[in-house]
């Protein structure tokens, strides 16, 4: 009973991390393209589009993050303690990045002169790269098996080929998510030029993801062969296969300008990427050291978490659906 519940909570935790990677990824990706847009007229128009498309989703993404943290410390307190004792340098940087990003995104709307505006653009853009990179590094550090290992300093646990590989993959993945969603927004505004602009960038990002992803696999097998082995066996292999099929598919769709399904497939690809890691690692939360069963909180706590999650899925599911419905209907936009 307890074990089943612990797995359920672990699944919800993985879901929250996945949701943050996909939904937050779209947001961070937009920030990355904002940084790379450069000066000039074309860059300015791209930035304006990015601004408009980011506005309505605002803080809902942070909620996933808070949720993951809270689930982790309540459901798996020991995991939380070990991860933060080892990886606090990574989280600190990611946290500062996260705050600066939000603050300067807001700030550039009230900036009054071009200089303020430029500074705000830079800080916003750079922190959009730094934040996902460092968050993903922490996942890589967990996967590397160094967290909680005796005699490993915080620095050694945080920085390894594997954590850096995870970080790089995440930057490519977020750039891809951002670009595909910006195509969608540009199409909605019937801005043909911007559609082409982000089409090129989608293709670049997809290519980068494939190259960097392959490199990352090499780094992982160098450091922790077991992870690659379990990624190549059932059930994780299913998710790996999804990533490997969908990423080129998205690229193909966008390249041929068949603008259907490309966004949902990107979300599925990025989501599967995270899920593949999580499933491959199970039953371990910290590879080789701590299993889901060992880390689980007492039964009562797990029951409450499951009940709360269940109730909320019943309430929040329909609410999100309603929000999306209103958004699709454009009920939340000015009538034209």
């Amino acid at each position: 009973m307890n074990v089943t519940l612990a797995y359920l909570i672990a699944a919800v935790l993985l879901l929250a991390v996945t949701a943050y990677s996909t939904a937050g990824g779209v947001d961070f990706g937009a920030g990355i393209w904002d940084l790379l847009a450069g000066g000039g007229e074309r860059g300015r128009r791209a930035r304006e589009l990015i601004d408009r498309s980011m506005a309505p989703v605002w803080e809902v993404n942070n909620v996933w993050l808070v949720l993951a943290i809270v689930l982790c410390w309540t459901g798996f307190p020991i995991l939380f303690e070990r991860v933060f004792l080892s990886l606090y340098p990574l989280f600190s940087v990611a946290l500062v990045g996260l705050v600066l990003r939000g603050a300067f995104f807001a700030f550039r709307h009230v900036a009054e002169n071009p200089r303020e505006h430029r500074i705000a653009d830079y800080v916003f853009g750079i922190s959009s790269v730094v934040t996902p990179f460092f968050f993903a590094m922490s996942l890589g550090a967990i996967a590397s098996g160094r967290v909680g290992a005796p005699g490993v300093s915080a620095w050694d646990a945080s920085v390894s080929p594997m954590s850096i590989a995870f970080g790089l993959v995440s930057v490519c993945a977020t750039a891809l998510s951002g670009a595909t969603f910006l195509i969608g927004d540009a199409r909605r505004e019937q801005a043909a030029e911007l559609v082409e602009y982000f089409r090129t960038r989608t293709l670049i990002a997809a290519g980068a993801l494939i190259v960097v992803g392959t490199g990352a696999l090499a780094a992982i097998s160098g450091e922790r062969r077991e992870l690659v082995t379990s990624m190549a066996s059932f059930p994780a292999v299913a998710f790996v296969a999804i990533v490997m099929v969908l990423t080129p598919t998205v690229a193909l769709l966008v390249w041929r300008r068949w603008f259907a399904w490309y966004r949902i497939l990107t979300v599925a690809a990025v989501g599967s990427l995270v899920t593949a890691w999580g499933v491959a690692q199970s039953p371990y939360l910290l590879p080789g050291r701590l299993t889901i069963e060992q880390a689980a909180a007492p039964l009562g706590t797990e029951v409450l978490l499951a009940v709360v999650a269940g109730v909320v899925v019943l309430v929040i599911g329909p609410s999100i659906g309603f929000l999306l419905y209103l958004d699709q209907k454009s009920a939340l936009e000015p009538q034209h």
Partner: protein
Amino acid sequence: MAFTLGYHILLVPLGVALPTLTLVMEGIGLARKDGVALLIARRWSVVMGVQFAVGAVTGTILSFEFGILWPKMLGRFGAAFGLGFAIEGWAFFLEAIFISIYLYGWNRLRPRTHFLLGLVLPPSGLLGAFGVLAANSWMNTPGGVTLKPNGVLDVDVWAALFTKALTYEFWHFTIAIYLTAGFAVASIYAVAWLRGRRDRYQRLAFGVPFTIAAALAPVQWIVGDLSARALTFDQPAKFAAMEITWQTRSNNPEVIGGLIDSGGNVHLGVAIPSLDSILVGLSPSTIVRGLSSFAENARPDAIESNLTHLSFDLMVGLGTAALLLTIWYFTVLVRRRRLPESRWFYRLAALGGVGAYVTVEAGWVTTEVGRQPWIVYGAMRVADAVTNASPVFLWSMLGTLIVVYAGIAFFFVTLLLRLSRRWRREDEAGGTEPSGARGLPYAPRPRAVE
């Protein structure tokens, strides 16, 4: 940690209670078909949006900081302490969704639908506050956990969620939230009155929040009194620090102001004979436990005691001042059937906003510093909870956060001032259609083709 928590708590009153005030105003506007009330509600909702964004950012920082600073406490007790937060996390989620709908829905949904959807906000805000207070109460009066012989913690969920302190912490703080939000919002329009604005807009925007706050002030006085008395049982060391009582004795005087040194001598301050004993047990012979009856490593030290004591006095003093102001307000309201017209009343009401915030902060200092040296009362000391990270790292982290928070505060205040200037210009121009949220960071998108 204290710094960020102390900052975040300032955002809570408006964050939780402003939606209620806004909805009351929208309700008035809809019921009476009053355009002015609707305009006010619309403007408040803009502030609500900005405030929520800031709160989401500081809230995210907080959740990470628990891990960065106190990993050992959560590793040990997360399964019990975290329960409240698990509820809060989901409530926050719900709030985020419905705030989006509410903000983007103005003029785009049917007014009635918009109002009804907004009604989700106050309960989800309160649910969130409940979760956090449950966690804080657990730190003050831990319950529901038993250590099994094999070293594993066993958690009784209900007992851990509804600890003794929750009863009074919840009511005391929930009322404080509405009280503070009411006084704070009203204070802005008190300033407007002093500057000569006397129209219906000003009267409504002042009267509604002030009346709500004023009705709660006496209730808070009683709840506060009950809370303090409960502490004499639940956390006698904290109570002793609040009253800087050194020796356990009957006929204990109530010391107002004043400082205690590490030898137990009280300097300065006005002592009212036997009053503390009377307040605790309604009789001068009531025995009050003093600081010296606790082991030295189980009670607040002299500095912590003084901080607790002075914050407590400040909180009670300001609370009493609010009560007097409220009596004035209702006297005029009942006898003359109109709002007060004295300049002094509005001067005091204008100070009331700041005063309410100072009171909240003082109350928070009282409960947190008064618990020292414990992080979990009687079960874990702060020193055992913190990370092994180097002091250099911690100090630089703190430095960064102070800069970031100062930036956020600056941004928030600047934005509000710009908004208020713009709204005043609009009102003077006499336009009827509010520009609402134009140019705001978290506002509905502007027209796509412009």
